[in-house]
């Protein structure tokens, strides 16, 4: 298994896996907090149309996927802001439209094949070029910078939109920023996990971490750690066994979720009464 890491494609795949493992749960924790766990899925499906267009016109897939994903995510957010029910429907329409558009354009492309489509749907170890990797590094860096600049605002809006408005925090700007960051994450994950499962690496590590954490920050930290471990181990397994990396990574993350959920039950039973007890201890 170690020998394979001497190859350039394997090294690029490992770097891409590290990036998506670290970054996806960081954005995922904001999505879960706002009950937008499926936004990444919708965005991923729309990104497939971008990939399909890029293959059809022989353009670079990453910028097109990013553009399509960003347009999709912003549209969902704007519609959701008007009406929650309409937002739900918009998400469903994007699921269908995104995947139909992607499959159609890839089929129409002169050099199309099911292998090309599968590599975007479920991730592939060999498709990432050096320029692709550079794009992924830049997008990941932009996501981290955005969190440094607007993290407090994004968190406050997620905690309570009304109070955030009273405090003059630009709620709409923050919602759109999160949509764009989600689109960026989808594109970073496209190469490793694939567009159909990229949302899982955003959400499942967060779902696992929050079984045992007590704060947003620790959920983000441990979510990222779980994402990183799942991505690297999943990738290494897919090097040795002939399976695509995306499903392997997601199954590992789900396994961690199940283990943490089982562990959390007795731990939470022990800790919760203590918190309630405080009220009696401190009350006069």
């Amino acid at each position, binding site marked *: 298994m170690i020998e394979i890491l001497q190859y350039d494609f394997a090294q690029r795949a490992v770097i891409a896996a590290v990036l998506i493992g670290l970054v996806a749960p960081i954005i995922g924790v904001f999505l879960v907090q706002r009950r937008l766990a499926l936004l990444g899925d919708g965005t991923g499906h729309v990104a497939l149309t971008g990939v399909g267009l890029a293959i059809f016109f022989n353009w670079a897939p990453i910028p097109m996927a990013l553009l399509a994903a960003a347009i999709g995510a912003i549209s969902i957010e704007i519609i959701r802001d008007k009406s929650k029910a309409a937002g739900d429907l918009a998400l469903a329409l994007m699921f269908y439209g995104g995947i139909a558009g992607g499959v159609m354009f890839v089929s129409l492309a002169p050099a199309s094949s099911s292998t090309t489509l599968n590599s975007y749907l479920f991730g592939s170890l060999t498709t990432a070029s050096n320029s692709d990797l550079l794009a992924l590094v830049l997008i990941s860096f932009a996501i981290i910078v955005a969190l*440094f600049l607007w993290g407090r605002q994004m968190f406050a809006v997620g*905690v309570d939109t009304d109070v955030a408005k009273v405090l003059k925090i630009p709620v709409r700007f923050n919602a759109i920023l999160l949509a764009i960051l989600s689109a960026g994450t989808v594109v970073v994950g496209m190469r490793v996990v694939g567009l159909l499962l990229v949302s899982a690496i955003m959400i499942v590590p967060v779902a696992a971490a929050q079984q045992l954490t007590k704060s947003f920050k620790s959920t983000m930290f441990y979510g990222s750690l779980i994402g990183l471990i799942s991505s690297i181990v999943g990738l290494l397994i897919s090097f040795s066994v002939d399976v695509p990396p995306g499903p392997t990574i997601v199954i590992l993350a789900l396994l961690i979720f199940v283990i943490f959920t089982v562990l959390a039950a007795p731990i939470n039973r022990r800790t919760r009464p203590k918190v309630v007890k405080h009220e009696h201890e401190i009350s006069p």
Partner: protein
Amino acid sequence: MDINQGEFVAILGANGTGKTTLLKVILGLLPIAHGSVSTNSDNIGYIPQRLPIQGGVPISVAEYISTGLRVKKINPFWIKSFESKLITQVLNTIGLLSIKNSNLYNLSAGQQRRVMIARALISNPDILLLDEPTAGIDSESQKSLKDILSNYKKNLKTIILVTHELEILEPLVDRVIVLGTKIRGSVIYDGGLPVPKHLNSIAHHSHEETINTKSILGMNNA
């Protein structure tokens, strides 16, 4: 309707009379068709009736309170050391320092309400608006809430309260505004306590969901 600085005003009325709507209009959360709202300060604290439904991500008490800080636009979400000191200070004031790092969603309703108040108070607002602050919380938390608001009032801060049940907060209230049922948003009483006896019917009408309807509008003192 004019509310003076340092006044503690309670807005009462039957369900559907527009109490919460009025509060949200004052806060700028809802547009208004006619008229205008002007305040002598932009530093307004708001304590909603309940925590919004979330996706299940734990939030520590300290993190929650940090969202009430008026910070620079550019700011990472984690708490800086000077902010942590402010949070410690405000939690100490309300007697909940020991739960600073606890998950907010694991606390009792009474503790959550006090933490919500701490979040509003951390930026030392000039005007404080509360939506049903005593609803659904235990008597100890209600007493604690009364003490917090009593201390806050001493600093000549304006407090506007929308409530079904004055009860424990009654001694702090300077003025009561009762909204009418016939015309949504109309004021049928604006004055001190106790309110006139004929408003007892509104009290009974409006408080189908509360336990003690008589004391709600201060009728115990009438």
